[in-house]
């Protein structure tokens, strides 16, 4: 095994922003980094090995220690509840978790049905609200569910609200803000404390300077 720091990166939405942050923090990621189809990319100059995973799986890789560090959305952290350190808010990929539905939806009063990609988060939220619901887990295109009568409401992440609007859905309640986080495996956090602290320090500087500009 090499001494490279293994970093689990989420494919998709967050990826580009995360790469940009790492570059600003002074890690030399080559321009072709984004275009690669490889799932494991080693970049000796940065001292890192990147693995490209489904966003929902990033905390799993980190918890099991096959990745030392990962970048994961708070939505995923809440859903997965993995035993990892959440050390830095990168403040990228802003969005929020919300409950949405049709504007004139009649509530199913006996057993309201909620469709979501986040069954744990949804179950937890409605329990806190003192409401018993039935959760239907879907893997994507959640907006479809209330449209064709699979569920009364949905729980999903909203960034611009455009998808909801175009499908005639309205946001009913906001659950919480979501940003992406740096997460760290507990063993790596001690065994590789030097490199990881350095990474966190550099990234937090970038995040802070961006906040000031805002």
């Amino acid at each position, binding site marked *: 095994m090499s001494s490279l720091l293994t970093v689990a990166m989420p494919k998709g939405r967050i990826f580009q922003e995360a790469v940009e942050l790492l570059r600003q923090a002074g890690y030399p990621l080559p321009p072709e980094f984004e275009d690669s189809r490889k799932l494991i990319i080693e970049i000796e100059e940065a001292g890192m090995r990147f693995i490209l995973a489904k966003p929902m799986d990033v905390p799993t890789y980190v*918890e099991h220690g096959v990745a030392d560090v990962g970048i994961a959305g708070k939505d995923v952290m809440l859903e997965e509840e993995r*035993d*990892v350190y959440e050390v830095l808010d990168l403040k990228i990929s802003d969005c929020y978790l919300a409950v949405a539905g049709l504007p004139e939806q009649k509530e199913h009063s006996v057993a309201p049905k909620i469709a979501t990609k986040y069954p744990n988060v949804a179950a937890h939220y409605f329990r806190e609200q003192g409401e018993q619901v039935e959760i239907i887990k879907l893997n994507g295109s959640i907006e479809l569910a209330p449209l064709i009568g699979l569920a009364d409401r949905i729980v999903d992440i909203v960034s611009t609200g455009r998808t909801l609007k175009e499908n005639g859905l309205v946001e009913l309640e906001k659950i919480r803000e979501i940003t992406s986080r740096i997460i760290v495996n507990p*063993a790596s956090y001690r*065994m590789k404390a030097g490199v990881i602290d350095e990474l966190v320090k550099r990234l937090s500087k970038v995040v802070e300077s961006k906040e000031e500009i805002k």
Partner: protein
Amino acid sequence: MSKPFVFEKPMGMRDTLPVLYQVKQQVRTVMEQEIREWGYQFIQTPTLEYYDTVGEASAILDQQLFKLLDSEGKTLVLRPDMTAPIARVVSSSMKDVSYPIRLAYDSAVFRSQQREGGRPAEFEQVGVELIGDGTSSADAEVIALMVSTLSKAGLQEFKVAVGHIGFLNELFVEILGNEDRAEELLRYLYEKNYVGYASHVKSLPLSSIDKKRLLDLLHLRGGEEVLKLAEDLTAVGGRKAISDLRELFNILELYGVQDKIVLDFTLFSHMSYYTGIVFEGYTNELGFPLCSGGRYDQLLGEFGRSAQAIGFGIRLDYLLEALSAKEPSASRSCIIFSAENRKEAIAKSRELREQGRSVVVQDISGVGNVDEYSGRFQEVIYVIGKSEKGGAQ
């Protein structure tokens, strides 16, 4: 639910095949030897305990307990750790033995995995409990013994992170004023959610100095120099903990194990169980702590014989993984005989066994493919045919 297939086992249950068994046995022997040399006595306790006693008292979360009912309808648990059963023994069968008591164990413990595979639900733990001694000497002895046991087992690269629950409690109460508010913050540490911790601290109605003290806490990790930083953070609360840790560090130096120790004031692995120092051991290429322990001065009281106590547990499965277990060196021989030479074969095997060899005595007519079978052994001795001299190979 469909009926399990014949090859299936309950989630998290694993077989130990011969090679692993032998490696495990070797490592276990070395560890037990070391622990015995430090004067600890091994004990065994039952696999099943009452939920209301050991189950409730144990540090393991309720959802991780394997529960079942006995014939009277009482809830039982498969023992989830060894500390609670030992506390029970010390408070009952051994109640007349005066403190301090040094006990050790090497036992399987059971923790149900609800989410997925990849982690065993039954695994062996080797550990000690030093009960009835609240001194820093006891703290240091237990940590030094853990380090020594790991080293003897052959583990080279590892670190033990040491923290102190008393420090956290007192610092938080000092700054926040009461235990409820302190507990809120402790929960963030317990959940390893430093982002949540930081934003919670920022939202509190505190002076900027106090906020900074709370935020700086997250950086209190490293060598002995961290003690100085910790001291700067506190006014009064936590001073005792710091001086305990300083003393601990000095004693660990006497044991010659201080290079394995890192201080980590953020270590907070259980909401209410531990009361003083806590520690966890890590090694390269292993994502989980392979050993852990700490001071638990409340537990014995739950069994009616209050005492200060400290202990550690090493997970044998993780240790073996980290050792990337070598093939066992002991070889096996095989004597393959035909019925008319049985007597010689048995005599020969006795002779070899007396030399400490591991010998299989196999009737040739009981084997289908002799070439394939004999290939499994380092040495094969044939005692076949009318002639008394067997051909050795």
